């Protein structure tokens, strides 16, 4: 469905006007913020239903899936969607339930399901996925994690071929989230795969009470070390987990994100672990990492408790230019927000930022820093849902939960904007994966949610508050093709907005790889600087808002399209 662009007021749409004291004034943004996410999956033709195959045996993977990825698989500059399905672990062993789903963006607000012609045929109990151009051929490839061997699908002109064996990335065990980044700055993307538990169906234990079986606490099982694959250049990978330092410790990894937290030009990895300390792998160069989460202050809850890390994201939420860390956890724990103080240290600001109070009742999974109202600061979207399908037997809460939208006041203080965020944020489901991106190329960020055992949601951003924005798509030449890991600095007056290109974050999924800048009331930015993973910098002066820039490494802006 075609919708008005982001300049004119969207009359007739379910937009609520929210007055947020102190919010939205950055860069002259409007004091009146329009927040409206429409639940638009059916309207858009997204009919995916995740199958978890829930059994009385309470196999733990059943309550953990499934992921969602936003990526442009057919190269038409319109983001497409990939939903990971799980299936059944019951009698007969692992098998495909109803298969993954690929939705091609029809560029008119709707999507066409296209898995049959995609070449993606692999069965298995899927968990998550991430996407990047592993062979720098201009087509985005897809990696899918499983409870079981993983799969890499090479994109050949918009159709996928199973390249798992040739690439050497099948692995084994229980993989969860994954992320691509060029960890050794050699011009191709490497692959990090978070691994969850040392668990097998034969080792599925009985947990709960005599009359109520529940999904086991992860502490019943041991953890599994994560895996790092180094790309040898043409999409063939080598497992470098041990020599890189990533595989030396067994965590219980559920979320992973790459960002250069110490601004040294090398991407670091943050891993959300479930009930054990989270990892911060500092990249010491050449793809060798040192785990420094405890020293840096991002391993635990502020008071020293290991938390139930699920999903994670890193971005500059307080405008100081340094990427901060957000991790989703269980209810009654609060999710955690860590502010990057520079000097290698983070300050846990969960309560000081308002995140603690807002997240206390929720079990969080997928999450993303995003500027939903184009006011030039990063807000937080969080997918929620309980772990136990029979949680109501224990507490007065439910398996489905509402998702959260936390509004940033510009300085890193957050408040729950969900009640004002439209019908999309009023849904209560068993949410897991969350991916964000401008699906309709209209200049604002939409959200896609993968729900466990339920239909997926598309929260279309229908707000229009008159704020301006910019989307930037990168094309590497010496750097990896999508510019994953590149750092972008957009100068607007006395503000500099810093963003990074990421290919994998949240929980089991990935956002649109294009970088979005909300610009408030400013229709032009003074300057855009891109520092590529190779270290090269490209600078664009006097950048006009309202469209999608494609910037080629070393060549500057090669394309500019207005928002739709």
């Amino acid at each position, binding site marked *: 469905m075609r919708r008005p662009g982001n300049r004119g007021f969207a009359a007739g749409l379910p937009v609520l006007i929210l007055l947020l004291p102190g919010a939205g004034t950055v860069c002259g943004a409007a004091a009146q913020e329009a927040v409206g996410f429409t639940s638009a999956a059916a309207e858009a033709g997204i009919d995916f239903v995740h199958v978890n195959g829930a059994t009385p045996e309470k196999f733990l993977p059943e309550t953990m899936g499934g992921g969602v990825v936003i990526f442009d698989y057919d190269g038409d500059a319109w983001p497409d969607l990939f939903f990971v399905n799980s299936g059944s672990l019951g009698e007969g062993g692992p098998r495909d339930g109803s298969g993954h789903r690929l939705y091609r963006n029809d560029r008119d607000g709707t999507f066409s399901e296209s898995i049959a012609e995609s070449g993606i045929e692999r069965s298995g109990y899927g968990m998550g996925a991430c996407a990047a151009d592993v062979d720098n051929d201009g087509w985005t490839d897809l990696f899918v994690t499983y409870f079981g061997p993983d799969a890499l699908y090479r994109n050949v002109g918009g159709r996928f071929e199973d390249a798992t064996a040739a690439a050497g990335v099948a692995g084994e065990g229980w993989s969860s989230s994954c992320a691509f980044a060029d960890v050794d700055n050699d011009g191709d993307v490497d692959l990090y795969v978070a691994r969850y538990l040392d668990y097998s169906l034969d080792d599925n*234990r*009985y*947990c*709960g*009470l*005599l*009359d109520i*079986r529940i999904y*086991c*606490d992860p*502490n*019943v*099982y*041991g953890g599994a070390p994560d895996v790092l694959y180094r790309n040898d250049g043409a999409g063939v990978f080598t497992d470098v987990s041990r020599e890189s330092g990533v595989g030396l410790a067994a965590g219980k990894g559920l979320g992973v994100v790459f960002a250069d937290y110490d601004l040294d030009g090398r991407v670091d990895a943050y891993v959300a672990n479930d009930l*054990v*300390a989270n990892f911060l792998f500092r990249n010491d160069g050449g793809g060798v990492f040192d785990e420094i989460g*405890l*020293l840096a*202050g991002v391993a*635990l809850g*502020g*008071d*020293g*408790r*290991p938390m139930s890390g699920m999903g994670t994201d890193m971005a500059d939420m307080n405008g100081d230019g340094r990427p901060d860390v957000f991790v989703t956890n269980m*209810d*009654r724990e609060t999710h955690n927000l860590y502010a990057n103080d520079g000097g290698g*240290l983070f*300050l846990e600001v969960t*309560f*000081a930022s308002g995140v*603690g*109070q807002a997240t*206390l*009742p929720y079990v969080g999974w997928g999450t993303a820093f995003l500027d939903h109202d184009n006011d030039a600061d990063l807000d937080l979207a969080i997918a929620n849902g309980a772990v136990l399908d029979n949680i109501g*037997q*224990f*507490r*007065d809460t439910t398996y489905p939960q509402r998702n959260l939208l936390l509004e940033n006041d510009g300085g890193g203080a957050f408040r729950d904007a969900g009640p004002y965020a439209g019908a999309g944020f009023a849904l209560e489901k068993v949410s897991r994966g969350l991916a964000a991106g401008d699906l309709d190329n209209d200049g604002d960020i939409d959200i896609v949610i993968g729900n466990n055992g339920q239909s997926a949601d598309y929260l279309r951003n229908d707000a229009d508050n008159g704020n301006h924005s910019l989307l930037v798509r990168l094309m590497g030449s010496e750097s990896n093709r999508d510019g994953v890991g590149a750092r972008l600095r957009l100068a607007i007056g006395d503000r500099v907005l810093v963003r990074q290109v990421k290919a994998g974050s949240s929980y089991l999924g990935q956002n649109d790889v294009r970088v979005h800048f909300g610009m408030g009331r400013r229709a032009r930015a003074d300057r855009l600087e891109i520092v590529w993973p190779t270290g090269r910098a490209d600078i664009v002066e006097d950048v006009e808002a309202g469209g999608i820039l494609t910037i080629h490494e070393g060549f500057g802006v090669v394309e500019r399209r207005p928002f739709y």
Partner: protein
Amino acid sequence: MLEYLKRARSLVAVLLLLAAHPASTRAAGAQADDAGAERRIGLEHLENGRFGAALDAYRRAIEIEPGDERLYLESADIHLASGAPEDAEAILREASRRFPGSTVPAYNLLYHDLAESWAGTGRLSRAAEAMSAAARFEGPVDPAIIHRRLGDFSADLLRLDAALAAYRTAWALDPGNAAVQLALGNLHLRRNSLDEARTAFDQVLGAHPDSVDALHGVSEIHRRRGRFEEALAAADQVLRRVPDHRRALYIRGTARIRVGQDAAGRADLEAYAALEVQAQADEHRARAVNAFRMEGMRHLLEGRRADAIEAFESGIAAYPDAAELHGARGQALSESGRHQEAIAAFLSMLESGGDAPTAHRELAREYRSVGDIEASDRHRALYEARPAVRPRP
């Protein structure tokens, strides 16, 4: 009081009833024709740990004399002791229906115990409901304890306003109760009401300067406020009293790094990490052993004794010194008529440091089953020499 009640419940539970009601000399297994006799039979079964038979006898007693309130309450107590809070609750509900307006103090105790039983299995909504019921009766349980626990359950349920009200009631009932003030302080921390939390912890420290929990609370308040020198000092106070206090080590370590004491901070964090690894291993072991035990118990409950034995043996293979698995395996073997193997299992339970009175009681029974009366008597004597338990209030 609460600690006593917990101990009593965990050790011998309803056997305490015997203190007030001597057992009948009539042989267990026989049926009586009046409620009093059935009750005595029930108590005798109870003494031998046969909860099912005891409850059968009480059921018959209630059928004979449905107007005897005491039978309902004792029956509920046995259900609680046998780990069946659902049945205990049903009986209590039935008693309330039959005897409206009753002020029997035992309701206070039973609802309190029911609440703790629900809480012990994680069913906090029902725990809060039962504790609220306990608060409606006067009885032996200290009302301040009832309201504090109500506050605890409410806090866990994230009913933070209700928790605050309950703690304040408890404090009003028992103004010197440090546990209530600690709970209040922690609740304020959860609400990020740092001034109120500080007041609560300071009040505790005024009366109990060595309170580790209060000192830790103070260090956490300073940490959240970014006052790292003060956080360090408070955490240091905790660690002088409890050197392996993990969370205090973490706070002191991070605070030291913040104030420039990098090497000392790193040392604290390394010490924290080592302790955490051990704690994680202990936690993993406890949960894994419990999972094996629950799996076997579930099979037993459904009559699949061979599967139960297999589950317990799988657990023992992984955790050979898990006394509870040896005991559970012994129980399953006994029910399967494999008494010699059951004896070996209960002896393993003893060797692994399991609950000695229980093991001796089961060994006495098993040796008797295989005709070794001397060994049976020896273990019976050991069982009966268990520490005396004070009668219930």
